[in-house]
């Protein structure tokens, strides 16, 4: 088996991995009983271990390095196929869209944490700023709702600029306290502020395009689909854009500079890398991505309340980044799927999710700090097809 996998072209290995993942995801989403879900989770753990042993994961990640575009396209096709399978069901589509939006937000955090080493424990707050932007502007202003989505990102980035000064002037721990304070106070602020709806929150209008409201399920080939189909497709689009942007950023000189700043500030300053500019860029770009995801999320749920954007939710976002592997976009998406779907499918652990994921992250940090799918070294040059996995 191992010999067969190692002879497989990397792209074929990646296709195989995505295909297996797709089948597994469809089977998993259809399960209702706790027993079935738990046994499938156990099966996934064993299968992932086996895939690691026979070299499938390594072969597939090799493809992600040599043919990033093709692998990304495969991932997109897999998501489209999943959405198509569940096109008529509300709940699975809602979950898929939530996974994709959380993954998008976590990609934004990844730019800050994983590349630049700028800590941000206010992820859920910036996500919330996007969602509240949707709540305040969709249907209540003259702006077309589609424009509100990028605006949510912009506003998150602009509010983030308030924190930039202390975050950039200080290092590591000090920046942490600034963002934690912001995160804790954001919820307090929302609760005491009556114009934003107070503790009860407020409803959010649906996104509309000319002649197309996201509140109605589109009829495709005569089949009445769920209205969440719109949001799932939009979430996929947002995730795709964020993914491409993050990958381009990583491969550019800017990404190289960001990594240098994380690894050694003094050395990068000596080589003429503008540290402040790098940190500001990462912080603003990350918050922008988080805010756009939040704006779409708010509109999809149709409702925003302060309790959805607490400090614990920020830590969940951080947990996604760490679980997937710092700086690893594919890992982030995988981790987002695990962190979002598992508590939803296993209602027994829903109440315990903050405890569960904090313990999981502690274990990850102690025993496997590189995460589930560790970040690969950059490959600037195409490598020969027959190259053995490093």
């Amino acid at each position, binding site marked *: 088996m191992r010999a067969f996998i190692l002879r497989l072209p990397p792209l074929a290995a990646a296709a195989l991995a995505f295909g297996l993942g797709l089948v597994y995801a469809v089977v998993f989403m259809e399960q209702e009983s706790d027993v079935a879900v738990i046994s499938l989770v156990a099966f996934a753990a064993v299968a992932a271990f086996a895939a690691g042993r026979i070299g499938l994961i390594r072969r597939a990640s090799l493809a992600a390095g040599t043919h990033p575009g093709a692998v990304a396209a495969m991932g997109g096709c897999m998501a489209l196929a999943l959405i198509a399978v569940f096109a008529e069901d509300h709940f699975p589509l809602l979950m898929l869209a939530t996974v994709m939006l959380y993954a998008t937000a976590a990609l934004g955090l990844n730019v800050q944490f994983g590349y630049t080493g700028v800590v941000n424990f206010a992820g859920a707050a910036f996500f919330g700023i996007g969602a509240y932007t949707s709540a305040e502007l969709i249907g209540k202003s003259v702006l077309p709702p589609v424009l509100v989505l990028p605006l949510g990102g912009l506003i998150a980035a602009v509010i983030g600029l308030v924190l930039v*000064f202390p975050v950039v*002037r200080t290092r*590591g721990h000090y920046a942490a306290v600034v963002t934690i304070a912001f995160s804790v106070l954001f919820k307090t602020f929302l609760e005491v502020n009556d114009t934003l709806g107070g503790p009860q929150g407020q409803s959010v209008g649906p996104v509309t395009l000319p002649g197309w409201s996201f509140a109605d399920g589109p009829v495709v080939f005569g089949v009445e689909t769920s209205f969440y189909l719109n949001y799932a497709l939009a979430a996929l689009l947002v995730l795709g854009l964020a993914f491409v942007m993050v990958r381009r950023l990583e491969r550019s000189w800017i990404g190289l500079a960001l990594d240098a700043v994380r690894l050694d500030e003094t050395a990068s300053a000596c080589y003429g890398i503008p540290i402040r500019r790098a940190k500001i860029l990462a912080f603003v770009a990350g918050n922008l991505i988080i805010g756009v995801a939040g704006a779409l999320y708010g509109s999809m749920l149709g409702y925003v309340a302060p309790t959805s954007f607490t400090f614990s939710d920020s830590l969940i976002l951080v947990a996604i980044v760490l679980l997937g592997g710092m700086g690893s976009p594919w890992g982030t998406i995988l981790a987002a799927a695990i962190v979002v779907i598992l508590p939803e499918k296993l209602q027994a652990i829903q109440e315990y999710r903050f405890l569960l994921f*904090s313990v999981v992250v*502690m274990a990850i*940090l102690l025993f496997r700090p590189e995460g589930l799918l560790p970040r690969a070294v950059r490959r600037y040059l195409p490598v020969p097809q027959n190259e053995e996995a490093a």
Partner: protein
Amino acid sequence: MDLLGQYLVNGIMLGTIYALVAVGFTLFFGVLDVIKFSHGDVLMVGAFAGFTAALGAAALGFTNPFVQLAASVLFAVSGTALLGAAIAKWLILPLKNAPRLNILLITLMLGTALRESVRLFYPDGSNPKAFPALLPSTAWQFGNFTLRADSALLVIAGIAVIVGLHMLINRTRLGLAIRAVAQDEETARTMGINYTLIVLVTFALGSGIAAVAGVMNGLYYNEVNFGMGLLLGLIGFSAAIIGGLGNLYGAILGGFLFAALQMIGAVALPFASAYKDVFAFAVVIALMGWKPTGLIPERSSERV
């Protein structure tokens, strides 16, 4: 005047609690150069331990409030001291050579785990608990201004703890060892100081002091709840930072400064008092931008 006096007493009270929390952060940062973000939640665990002990003593038939108080403080301090040492041994020391971000993350996650554990597993833990009033309820009247005996006792106790810590650090062999480890790990080891032991003792010490702050907080507000540690820890950390991390007196100064900011926010500002924390933190963030190493910085030079 009377209202102002009340705010003043209130501010001194809160400042003492904050200073006790900040001292812990500064101790940990001194010996290991790490930030233990679970400190606030350790404090919360201490407050719950004290609460349980007070109830337990009452259930065992000790009706004297002073016995209950002694049981409460003793149990809270010893419990959290053990917890603090355990955290240092199994979570922080193993990660000593990992990127510093990892220690920050692991302690943050530990804080969440402690908070959630109390919420989920303590009997009816998700609701606030009424902390028994164990201090005498006498009050002295000075004109319009009332001084409550319990506030006075709490402030005196808090200041006694701070002075005791000062003596411990500056006048004893243990304090000498702690200062030596804080200054230079390798030299301290060469001089025959048991490094690991001193680190564990320091973490136990800092956590025990946090438990005192937790019980004080419970006695003062007559309430403990699972979420109290998050904000208190954040305030203690901010206080330690604006004072200058690693400096004991900076932490105390920072604690009182933060309480003063909160009082100013509550009294002098035109907004609702719900914004007093927002105001205090905004000033702290501005202060950090202005003096990133704190008001009384630790003397250091960077080795490259």
